[in-house]
């Protein structure tokens, strides 16, 4: 839904650090917070994060309401893992990813990176943090400036954030291109001379140029041809292993998310409704929406057809979400309580959380 804008395209630039971000919430002293018993500490964590977009009408652009794109979301991504974020169009995945990177300000709540509240950082600290956090977009063409040579596109973050000489930058560009499987002799060409899959490799090379710790991949393979998607997924897995990357992997196709994610979060209308280890989620979804979503995706095989649960109705508008549980208007199990009371995201089993009054047994 959301295309990268100039600010995001330039996310690595010193002038684009989202300084407008309101420093909300109190920064709690202390280091990285880990869930008790979890395998690794959280590298990045959202706490009660909200992002509302004003809906404006009329001559004086009066604010008549808000799209609650992200509404009180808390979750964490552990160091070295891939956290998959799934949900239907408009549920707030991209917005959540961008607020986590401070490419968009938060309306309320906080994002902690290595224990520090990033929305409370000064411009200089934020600039340093930018080097640690990067994004890969869905549309490689829209996120690459068409008037830049590939060498400059990949070298730009190095130029902005390091003191490397141009010869050293060029060496590094060659290394990066080889690392992502591009022919480095083509570095003096423009992005349109590359295929979609190759352009996505350029975007990836650019994203890893500063050796970040954390990468948000927003539908990074969705726009690619099927036969090229697995090439790019392989590359992302290889880089994760070699560079120790942590990914927030946003997608609406479930097969690729399942393959690459250690854990998965399911969103519905601005809410996180379930978080679980990938295998546990697919073996047994606890939230009725997760169950529906898993069953709705057509599987490319004739064997072992799953029983499909077909929902009634469409996804309601996030400007005017249903009361109580937001899924109650379409949920096959909804009771009176679901209309009245909003379920909190609670621990249902070790390492898994669900927001439902009547989770599936």
């Amino acid at each position: 839904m959301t295309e990268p804008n100039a600010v995001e395209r330039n996310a690595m630039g010193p002038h684009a650090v989202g300084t407008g971000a309101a420093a909300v919430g109190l920064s709690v002293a202390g280091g990285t917070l880990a869930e008790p018993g979890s395998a690794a500490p959280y590298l990045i964590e959202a706490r009660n994060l909200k992002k509302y977009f004003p809906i404006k009408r009329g001559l004086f652009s009066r604010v008549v309401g808000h799209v609650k794109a992200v509404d009180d979301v808390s979750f964490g991504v552990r160091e070295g893992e891939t956290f998959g974020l799934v949900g239907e169009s408009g549920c707030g995945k991209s917005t959540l990813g961008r607020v986590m990177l401070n490419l968009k300000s938060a309306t309320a709540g906080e994002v902690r990176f290595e224990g520090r509240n990033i929305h409370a950082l000064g411009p200089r600290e934020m600039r340093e943090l930018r080097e640690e956090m990067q994004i890969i977009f869905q549309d490689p063409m829209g996120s690459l400036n068409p008037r830049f040579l590939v060498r400059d596109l990949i070298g730009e973050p190095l130029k902005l954030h390091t003191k490397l000489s141009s010869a050293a930058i060029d060496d590094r560009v060659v290394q990066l291109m080889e690392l992502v499987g591009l022919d480095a002799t083509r570095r003096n060409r423009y992005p349109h001379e590359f295929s979609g899959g190759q352009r996505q490799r350029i975007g990836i090379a650019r994203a890893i140029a500063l050796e970040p710790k954390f990468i948000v991949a927003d539908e990074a393979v969705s726009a690619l041809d099927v036969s090229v998607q697995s090439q790019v997924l392989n590359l992302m897995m290889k880089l994760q292993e070699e560079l120790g990357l942590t990914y927030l992997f946003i997608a609406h196709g479930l097969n690729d998310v399942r393959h690459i994610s250690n854990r998965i979060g399911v969103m519905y209308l601005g809410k996180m409704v379930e978080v679980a280890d990938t295998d546990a989620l697919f073996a047994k979804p606890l939230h009725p929406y997760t169950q529906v979503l898993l069953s709705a995706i057509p599987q490319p095989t004739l064997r072992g057809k799953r029983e499909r649960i077909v929902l009634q109705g469409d996804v309601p508008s996030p400007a005017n979400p249903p009361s109580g549980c937001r899924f109650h208007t379409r949920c096959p199990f909804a009771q009176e309580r679901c209309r009245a009371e909003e379920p909190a995201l609670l621990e249902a089993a070790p390492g898994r959380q669900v927001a439902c009054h009547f989770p599936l047994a």
Partner: protein
Amino acid sequence: MAQELLEIKDLTVGFLTEKGFVRATDRISLSLPKGQTLCVVGESGSGKSVASLAVMRLIDYAGGVIAEGEVHFQGQDLTVKSQEEMRRIRGNKITMVFQDPMSALNPVFTVGEQIAESLRLHKQLSAGAAWSRVIDMLRLVGIPDPEVRARQYPHEMSGGMCQRVVIAMALACDPELVIADEPTTALDVTVQAQILELMQKLKREMGMSILLITHDMGVAAEMADRIAVMYAGVIVEEGTAEDIFERSRHPYTHGLLKSIPGLSGERGTELYAIQGNIPRLGELPAGCRFSPRCPFAAERCFREEPPLLPTPDGHRSACWLESGPEVKTS
């Protein structure tokens, strides 16, 4: 063998460009038995939409030229018909559902008026009879409160609802053939599930045939009786859904299925990947179009283009390999 409703023979459709005449489809042959669903699958630019627009002769309006071949529909060759004659067939015996429902609907008329209009045109129904059929059709495609909804404009409805309206319109005249080009690609997955279910149900109840174009092998697995796989303007493999999913013979089909995550291999392990990229139309390789990417390519593959020939189990594949890819990859 079932009776063929649609038979495409050696259809070549192309465009005049600065590079000369480029063939978006190159001598493709396909047949669709009555009452069945034929899925045409393939990646972006493989020629799926061009082929379907040529069947409808809408390609004339898109700047395309049918350079060769025939399209037999109920025994008549559509490629030689005038647009005047085609107008009596389109929207009546053959109807179409596109990816973007908004482009198929006129924003200044209510959805009910639009469906009624085609009924008056093709079926010479009175206004009253047309309107009651409109309500029936909207109800059939699962639109709640059809009497109210019929009086609404497209922008007052969600994308999924609009696609149901388009399907209602496509079915109102009781067509023999519905051509659906990525009808669910723009929809949410839960809404896609509703629409696919609806199309299955309507096909059973109304007995029409469906030519379904998709790039999603999952959608094909769910919907298809028969499948044709296109690559760079040609059909590389064609057969029943079982032939394609269980016994694919062509290295491209085989690789495409193998590269889908989750079907083979363990989570987090390296995925099978077809190397390289899809060739551009003006820069097709010599010989087999898949040869630069094919792990099995032999010397002959780079010289001679393989024709679509019967396989030992009776489906068709355009590949010089004698034993099929299964044997060599395991």
